[in-house]
């Protein structure tokens, strides 16, 4: 079978990239690492007429960690660079872990965190942690720039809130609140290196041992990475005991609507959401307690 044909542009500024997308229309596709895009083209799931490579835009791969402004991950920052970044590992350890648990070495050397989000797979390994930490995406487009919370960005499998001509230029994470703890747990067939069958990311905030805020996001068990709000509510305002964690994890599982697919059956996913939520909440509690005692 002959390869699908397309043209290629490598703009050097965001404005040029946006212009190329506007001129090209909907069959012009953005590429960062290409680890989702090229696979889809090869598997004949997508037939773009033109590819706009973002990797030649200077500075778009910047990563910055700042006490006041939080973490900013540029659109072309590699999964490998996010996983290895000292500032992220120190101040946003779960963000680094999730990037490091995405795919394999080669794919992490090509693929990006922002590409993982824009691909909008319900199983995207970087989405749950970033959503739990209240991340926002910065968008550039023909009518200027805008930002939106990551949990409004995902609209369905493969569908984001981006409009024609828009690209995400960065994902930003606010500084973690005092007393917070985060964790991400996932399961997949080949260890951690293929797309996850289930993933749970969480951030909780403790004041003494009282939970004052909680976010639990489940990946791969709904059309989008999903907040389980009833489970979150059960934790807020209470002492975070093992019993309460188990009850909240069970509720989280009941809130999801997994399907059976090549990666796992629906019933397995339901069971595993509860298991992973227990692990994630327990780890997040531990991190929060450790941070408060080391102060």
């Amino acid at each position, binding site marked *: 079978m002959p*390869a*699908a*044909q*397309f*043209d*290629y542009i*490598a703009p050097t500024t965001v404005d040029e990239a946006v212009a190329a997308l506007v001129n090209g229309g909907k069959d012009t596709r953005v590429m960062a690492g*290409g*680890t989702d895009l*090229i*696979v889809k*083209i*090869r*598997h004949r799931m997508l037939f773009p007429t033109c*590819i706009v*490579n973002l*990797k030649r835009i200077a500075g778009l791969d910047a990563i910055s960690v700042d006490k006041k402004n939080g973490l900013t991950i540029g659109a072309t920052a590699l999964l*490998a660079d996010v996983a290895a970044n000292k500032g992220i590992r120190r101040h946003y350890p779960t963000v680094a872990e999730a990037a490091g648990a995405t*795919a*394999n*070495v*080669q*794919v992490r*050397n*090509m693929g990006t965190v922002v590409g993982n989000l824009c691909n909008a797979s319900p199983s995207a390994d970087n989405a749950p942690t970033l959503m739990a930490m209240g991340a926002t995406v910065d968008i550039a487009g023909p009518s200027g720039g805008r930002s939106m919370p990551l949990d409004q960005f995902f609209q369905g499998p493969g569908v984001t809130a981006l409009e024609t001509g828009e690209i995400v230029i960065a994902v930003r994470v606010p500084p973690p609140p005092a007393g917070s703890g985060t964790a991400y747990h996932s399961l997949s067939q*080949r*260890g951690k*290196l*293929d797309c996850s069958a289930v993933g749970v990311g969480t951030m909780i905030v403790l004041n003494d041992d009282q939970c004052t805020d909680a976010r639990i996001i489940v990946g791969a068990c709904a059309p989008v990475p999903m907040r389980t709000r009833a489970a979150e509510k059960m934790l807020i305002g209470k002492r975070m005991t093992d019993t309460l964690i188990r009850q909240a994890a069970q509720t989280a599982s009941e809130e999801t609507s997994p399907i059976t697919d090549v990666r796992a059956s629906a019933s397995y996913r339901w069971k595993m959401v509860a298991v992973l939520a227990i692990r994630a909440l327990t780890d997040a509690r531990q991190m929060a307690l450790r941070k408060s005692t080391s102060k």
Partner: protein
Amino acid sequence: MKHDISLTVNGDTYTLAVEAWRTLNEVLREDLNLTGTKLGCGSGDCGACTVIVDGKSVSSCLTLAVEMDGRRILTVEGLAPSGETLHPIQEAFIEKGAIQCGFCTPGMELSALHLLKTNPLPSDTQIRSAISGNLCRCTGYNKIVDAIAEAGRRMDPPSKTGR
């Protein structure tokens, strides 16, 4: 439309005109006759096509050749440029019996090089995680892990091994 690119492979610079949809894997194998780089799955899963671009290991089956303009690429042929003196990684693979059919070997060796450059004396767990993107259907991996550990010892520190 063809795009003019200039890339360096194993120290040699090539100027080529390539179609946008052709992969680095195709250009290496078909245009440059560097068939040491293999094609297995074509979708990023097996690692047989691994090459090193500007110091980073990547899957050449998912890399567009046009993107390689100005880049420096190392393939398995570049590990032993003379064709006579082998690279310590290659020697260790032979001595430890880490090669059976050999299809995974070029990719394994480049993943090994990528690891050993930043972590000369890795643990077995670190080796296994570094080659987790490289599938081998023959060896059962143990001998590959042994070979990479051995290569690391030989390459670091160079003075002890006389290299």
